[in-house]
C-alpha cells in the first residue's frame, strides 16, 4: 500500500463576517485507499489533538447521493475526477508530495458560513418558487398506470431528476450561474404529462427566483455538465429556455 505526504492549502474563515484566508497544513502517511473526506478526518483529528480548531465542511451520506459535500479541489468542483462527488473521490487520484488547494464552493448566492461550509438555501428557495407539481398528497389521484408515459420521456425525466443539488454547477461556472440546476428541475416536470399543466408558469417563476438570488447568467461554456457529479446534460438548460420563452410569449 502506498502512502503519501501532502500539503493542503485550505480556506479558513471563522464565520460569515470574517474575511478568511488560505492556510497551509501538512498531512502525512495518507493511504491511497482513503476517500478525500477521510483524509480530511485525519487532518481534523490531528488539529483537535494539537488543540486547534478543526476544519468545518459539509458531508453526510458519503456515498455520493445526498449532495452535502461541496469542496472546490485544485480548481475544480469535487476535484479532478469527473462524475464524482468529493466523498467518492479517493486519494489514489493524488500523489506523494502534492499540494492540494481546498476551497469552498464560491458564489455570492452561496455565502460562506464557516471554512468550507456554505449556505445553499438559495437552491431551496428556487425550488419553493415552483419546483413541484400542485397535487395534494391525499392519495386520491388517478391510478399510477392510467397515463402511459413514453419510456424515452420517462428516462429523460429521470436523467434530469438525478440532480443531487450539490451546487457544483454554480461553483464551477465562471459566471456562478444556476441554470443547470434550475434547468434540470424544469425539465423533469416538463417531460412528464403530470408536470405539463403548470410547466410555463413554473419556468417563469423559478427563473425569476433564480435571478433574484443573484446567480450569474449562463454563457453556455458547458463547464457545469462536465463537472456535474451526476452528468446532467445542458440540453436541460435548452429545454428550460424553450419553456421560458414559450411561456413569455403566452
Amino acid at each position, binding site marked *: 500500500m502506498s502512502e503519501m505526504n501532502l500539503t493542503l*492549502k485550505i480556506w479558513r474563515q471563522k464565520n460569515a463576517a470574517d474575511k478568511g484566508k488560505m492556510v497551509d497544513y501538512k498531512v502525512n502517511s495518507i493511504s491511497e485507499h482513503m476517500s478525500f473526506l477521510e483524509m480530511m478526518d485525519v487532518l481534523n483529528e490531528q488539529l483537535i489533538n494539537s488543540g486547534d480548531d478543526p476544519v468545518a465542511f459539509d458531508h453526510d451520506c458519503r456515498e455520493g447521493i445526498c449532495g452535502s459535500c461541496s469542496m*472546490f479541489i485544485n480548481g475544480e468542483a469535487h476535484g479532478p475526477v469527473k462524475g464524482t462527488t468529493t466523498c467518492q473521490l479517493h486519494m489514489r487520484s493524488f500523489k506523494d508530495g502534492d499540494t492540494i488547494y481546498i476551497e469552498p464552493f464560491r458564489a455570492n448566492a452561496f455565502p460562506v458560513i464557516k471554512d468550507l461550509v456554505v449556505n445553499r438555501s438559495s437552491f431551496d428557495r428556487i425550488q419553493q418558487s*415552483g419546483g413541484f407539481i400542485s397535487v395534494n398528497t391525499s392519495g386520491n389521484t388517478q391510478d399510477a398506470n392510467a397515463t402511459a408515459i413514453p419510456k424515452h420521456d420517462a428516462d429523460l425525466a429521470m436523467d434530469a431528476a438525478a440532480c443531487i443539488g450539490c451546487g457544483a454547477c454554480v461553483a464551477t461556472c465562471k459566471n456562478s450561474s444556476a441554470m443547470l440546476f434550475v434547468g434540470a428541475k424544469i425539465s423533469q416536470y416538463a417531460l412528464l404529462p403530470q408536470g405539463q399543466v403548470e410547466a410555463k408558469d413554473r419556468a*417563469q417563476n423559478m427563473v425569476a427566483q433564480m435571478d433574484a438570488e443573484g446567480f450569474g447568467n449562463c454563457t453556455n*461554456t458547458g463547464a457545469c455538465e462536465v463537472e456535474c457529479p451526476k452528468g446532467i446534460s445542458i440540453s436541460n438548460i435548452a429545454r428550460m429556455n424553450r419553456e421560458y420563452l414559450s411561456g413569455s410569449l403566452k
Partner: protein
Amino acid sequence: MSSKKQGLSSIGKKVIMALTGFFLMFFLLQHLSINLLSVFNADSFNEVSHFMGTNPLVQWVLQPVLIFSVVFHFVWGMKLEYENNQARNVKYAKYNGGANASWMSRNMIISGLAVLAFLALHFYDFWIPEINTKYVIGDTSGLIEGTENFRYHEELVHKFAHQPWRVFLYVLSFVMLSLHLLHGFQSSFQSVGFNHTKYTPVIKMLGNIFAIAIPLGFIFIAIYHYNVHPH
C-alpha cells in the same frame, strides 16, 4: 401564479445576445459574399457595393438594424460580463477553467473586445469615409471624382495594397473573430433553446465550419489584395 419579473430575466438577456448574434453572423456571410466579388470581378463588386450603399431599404432599414445589433451585442456582452463577474465577489485561489470548458467559451469578452477594436479600425477605414462622402459631402454617385468609374473596388485595393501592418491587423482580428464564432455559433442555438441529440452535433459541425471559413475568407481577401496589386 404571478411573475416576479423585474427588467429582463437572465434568459431574456441571453436570448438577446443570441438573436443579435444570429443577425451579425448573417451579416458576416453577406459581407463576405460581396467582398469575394472583389477578388473575382471588380465590376460586379462595384455594382453590388453601389446598390448596397444607395438602396434605401439597405441604408435606412438594414443598416440601422445592423448598427443596433452591433451596439446591443457589445453593450449587453459587456454588461453581462460585468454582472457575471459580480456574482462571485471572492475569487478562487485556484481555478482550473481549462478542465471543463474551452478557452473560446470562457473568453468571449477577450475575443469580443478584440473584434470591437477591429471594428473601430474598420469603421475608420471604410464606414466613416463612406458616410462622410455620401451624407456629409452629399456625393451619392459612387464614382471616383472626375471619372465614370465606381470608387469602391479602388478604395478597397488602396487600403490593402500598400500597408502590410493593416493586413496584419486584419488577419489577427479575423483570428479573434474565428475564436469568437467557434463558441458563439453553437451557443446561440443553445440560448434560444435548440438542443437535440441528433441535430446539435450537426449544428456544432456547421458552427465550426462557419467559424473557420468566414474569417478565412476575409483573411484571403486581405492577403489577396496585398499580394496581387503592385506594392
